[in-house]
């Protein structure tokens, strides 16, 4: 947090730039301020023209807002990426195995790796899926894993997103804009391409289609509609995939088969890439008030006639309460040591954890297991003694409800502003595609940047922006 010296990915001011960033550093040095300013203006103009926007709930004046884009690319070396890639593959594999297990034999509970109540009472553990298997045992077809780095060596997973992760449209658009904006800088690096993401996604979705002839499979993107904050991305992806963008009312179910209404009559649907939450998928099974879903969809799904991606019930794998167990899941299901680190998490449900946390409340962030949106949270270093004492009493009253983590110093990257170039904190969300045949990861991801000075909050709803992420070859000519 504030006051902690963060690792800068380019190198701190006054120090020579890290080898990876040498060309970016030189470019920032040599480019006149006016030129950078005009590039920033051009970038904004391009994003407005593309129409890539982000809806902010409860803000009528800014119903559709542009997410700020920072023109300075964020670089990760090929060698670093290879390590990340292996770690991501391992992690998502374990999450899928975990889902197969919790909805199946529940070995993980029977062998006391995870306390049963964390699963059984978890609202995202869907009773409808118990005793069922997802096609090919793939549940989280599309996962977005949030990663931060704290030094030259260490990457940490901050959060797993295994429901309907968004942001991939920014990864693709940021690259297009950057290539047009900074062709020279781009040409001076050997940057791994990201533009085959739609093809990879299509291949992934095809691979899990229930039909024998998978090339014939009809795939659709299911959106909650125009008023969803990620609607732009839904229509963008449907367009890039070359498939229909549908809302619930465009689909219907007859005899456990899903059909899409088209001008040429009903057409059978095989795979639904849904961007609608579980609760709203089928009013006959979930929320009866929902008008976003398709009545009968779950029946068709359980009959094996349609594949839903991501599967129903994946929320139990990316829950805050489960996060701290992911390294254990990797060891349990794969008999491997985790390649990516978890932020150390102390569970107050365990006596040792409780003792540790109570002794170090001034250094830790304490979170309620089932809390969300910062509710019921203590940021130790920023709290007063009285607040800490009050919180300690709450923890002691119900230890199982609390976890604690150290405050992390997220790395920074240079960002370009009117007043010059300054370091800002960043994270990274790569997208992991799991199909019946293989795991695919496009080299790159969405880098989010906290544009406010000193801020660690990268969320777009709170003043965060994005950057293009370059995975670059390590050995570069010194031109």
């Amino acid at each position, binding site marked *: 947090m504030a006051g902690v010296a963060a690792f800068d990915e380019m190198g701190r001011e006054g120090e020579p730039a890290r080898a990876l960033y040498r060309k970016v550093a030189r470019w920032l040095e040599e480019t006149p301020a006016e030129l950078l300013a005009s590039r920033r203006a051009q970038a904004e103009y391009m994003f407005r023209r593309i129409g890539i926007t982000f809806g902010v709930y409860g803000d009528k004046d800014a119903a559709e807002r542009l997410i700020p884009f920072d023109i300075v690319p964020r670089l990760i070396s090929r060698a670093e990426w290879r390590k990340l890639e292996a770690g991501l593959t391992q992690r998502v594999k374990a999450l899928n195995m975990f889902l197969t297990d919790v909805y199946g034999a529940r070995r993980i509970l029977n062998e006391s790796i995870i306390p049963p109540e964390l699963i059984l009472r978890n609202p995202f553990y869907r009773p409808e899926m*118990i005793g069922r298997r997802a096609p090919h045992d793939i549940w989280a077809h599309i996962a977005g894993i949030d990663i931060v780095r704290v030094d030259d060596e260490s990457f940490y997973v901050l959060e797993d997103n295994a429901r309907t992760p968004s942001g991939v449209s920014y990864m693709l658009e940021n690259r297009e804009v950057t290539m047009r904006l900074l062709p020279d800088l781009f040409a001076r690096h050997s940057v791994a391409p990201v533009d085959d993401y739609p093809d990879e996604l299509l291949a992934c979705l095809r691979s899990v289609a229930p039909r024998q002839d998978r090339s014939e499979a009809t795939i659709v993107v299911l959106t909650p509609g125009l008023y969803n904050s990620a609607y732009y991305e839904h229509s963008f992806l449907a367009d890039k995939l070359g498939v229909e963008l549908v809302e619930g009312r465009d689909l*219907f179910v007859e005899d*456990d088969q899903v059909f899409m209404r088209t001008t040429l009559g009903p057409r059978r649907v095989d795979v639904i890439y849904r961007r609608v939450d579980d609760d709203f998928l089928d*009013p*006959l099974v979930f929320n*009866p008030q929902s008008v976003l879903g398709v009545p*009968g969809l779950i029946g068709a799904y359980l009959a094996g006639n349609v594949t839903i991606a991501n599967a129903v019930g994946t929320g139990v794998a990316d829950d805050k309460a489960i996060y701290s167990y992911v390294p254990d899941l990797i060891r349990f299901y794969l008999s491997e040591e985790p390649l990516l680190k978890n932020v150390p998490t102390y569970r107050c449900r365990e006596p040792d954890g409780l003792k540790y946390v109570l002794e170090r409340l001034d250094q830790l962030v304490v979170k309620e297991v089932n809390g969300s949106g910062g509710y019921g949270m203590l940021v130790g270093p920023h709290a007063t003694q009285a607040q800490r004492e009050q919180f300690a009493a709450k923890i002691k009253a119900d230890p199982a409800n609390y976890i604690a983590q150290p405050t992390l110093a997220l790395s920074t990257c240079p960002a370009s502003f009117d007043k010059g170039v300054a370091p800002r904190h960043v994270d990274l969300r790569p997208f992991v595609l799991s199909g019946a045949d293989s795991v695919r990861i496009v080299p790159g991801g969405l880098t989010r940047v906290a544009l406010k000075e000193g801020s660690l909050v990268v969320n777009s709803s709170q003043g965060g922006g994005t950057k293009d992420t370059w995975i670059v070859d390590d050995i570069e000519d010194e031109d």
Partner: protein
Amino acid sequence: MRIRISHETTHRYAPPARMLIQNLRLTPHGFDSQYLLFWRVALDIDSAIKTSEDAHGNVVSTFSHHGAPIERLTVTARGEVETSDSAGVIRGTAERLPTDMYLRDSPLAHVNGALRAFAIESAGGAQDPLDALHRLMAELHRVMSFDPYQTDDPDSAAEAFALRRGRARDFANIFIACARALGAPARFVTGYRAFEEPDGEAGAHAWAEAHVPRLGWVAFDPTVCICADPGYVRVVVGFDARDASFASAAHGMSDDTIESVIRVEQARFQTQS
């Protein structure tokens, strides 16, 4: 007791519905104290019924219709069961979910502060879980008044408890919320109730089941303040009234006016069938 049931539901759609889909939970399972003699679910439209099981293991009959507009639809469930006395203990059911899942919070049986306080006070520190649940049932029956024609239409346990009156479903939701607060897995039951003597009250009914160590599931009816006797025909179970309903349906944009005729009678004096 041998019980004959006829449950007829007539839907009138305005404008006539071009698409219909329903999940019917109108078929009971048999278990140790409930034996199915026969059971049949039928429609008066030309549509195939598929049978499956839902998360709780309830029998689900699904049908769908697309095309020619339908103005009127009648769903009929008819059957006969033979029940025996088990002092409310339910044995021999096929359980799909781990028992402890019935401890989880559910939308209509959510425990608020008032319900939690009431549960603890009602149990009065009883050490034996069965004893605590009996006390809860008695206290709930005492403080709530039964109002089958409840017009305020409270949805959740908390709302009904605040009013201190409700229908059988409200009594059951409240009992479930409180039982879970006391640490007992609990669930909602929808079914029918018959009486020894011909009685106007026979018909559809709702009650609760709570899981007691060593005994298993026990059926409590807080509306009447008894454990289920042979007059109870158990059809659907769920976390609360929301997922333990007889049917969930979708009918496009049409309005649906529903009329139900339920006959539940003792089949002892049957002449011929």
